[in-house]
């Protein structure tokens, strides 16, 4: 495993992007950093600048106004950068797929490495997903 990959899996810095979400998934993501789940003890940190991001946590139903910004953020993230689709809306746009104001699903716009279903996904489910992803990366994707 390269040093870069090793560093990535040892301490993942996540950057959160909402592309038209109801905020439930976003709150559950933040919840992971609070005392009950305390994901920071695994070295996972929520950061304020995409330029240091190892992983993008994307929520939301792909609102037309948000998608161009989301794409720009993905371009700014240093590669390798994993893309995590959090929540039903990011997976498939959920019940908003017929709306006049949503675009195509996330995985048709960006390459998604991890899907975490749920509305919203529990913090435990998100942690489980991240563990699975880290295992996958370490095995060499």
């Amino acid at each position, binding site marked *: 495993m390269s040093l870069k990959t090793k560093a990535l899996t040892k301490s993942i810095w996540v950057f959160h992007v909402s592309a038209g979400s109801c905020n439930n998934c976003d709150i559950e993501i933040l919840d992971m950093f609070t005392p009950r789940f305390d994901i920071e003890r695994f070295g996972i940190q929520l950061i304020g600048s995409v330029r240091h991001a190892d992983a993008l946590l994307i929520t939301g139903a792909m609102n*037309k*106004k948000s998608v161009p910004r989301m794409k720009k953020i993905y371009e700014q993230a240093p590669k390798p950068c994993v893309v995590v689709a959090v929540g039903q809306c990011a997976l498939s746009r959920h019940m908003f797929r017929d709306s*006049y*104001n949503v675009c195509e699903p996330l995985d048709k716009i960006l390459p998604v490495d991890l899907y975490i279903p749920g509305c919203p996904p529990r913090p435990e489910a998100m942690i489980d997903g991240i563990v699975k992803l880290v295992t996958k990366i370490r095995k060499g994707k």
Partner: protein
Amino acid sequence: MNMRDKIKDGLGNKIKVWDERSARRIYFTVEPNDVYKSVEFIFKGLGLRFSTASGVDLPEGFEMIYHFSFDKAGEVYSLRTLIKDKARPEIDSIAPIFRGAEWVEREIWEMLGINFKGHPNLKRLLLAEDWPEGEFPLRRKNES
């Protein structure tokens, strides 16, 4: 005088229809030209609180309803008007009376295309910059 009588008294024959649906839901209709003065009386004169306004695309025209709350009695007074010209719907903006109406009217304009004359800032609120001009999501297209 209770609130119903105050409104009937103050608006007089501007009220074309008066409909008390239930104890706390009163709907009354005025002509589009009378909306500004009526709202001014209800908000400034009677001190009712503006909750919101909604518009709907009906075959006979665009119906606008302004919902006012009389908090002391928990009643909602809904002022209804029908804009018959569907080709170029417009009505006087009530934003000059109170600023809480600004966003509400902007949203109705971008969803239904009703022009609010005298609105200080009638521009897009929710839709993207590149949303096609002239396309109003809440207008009914010809559905066969």
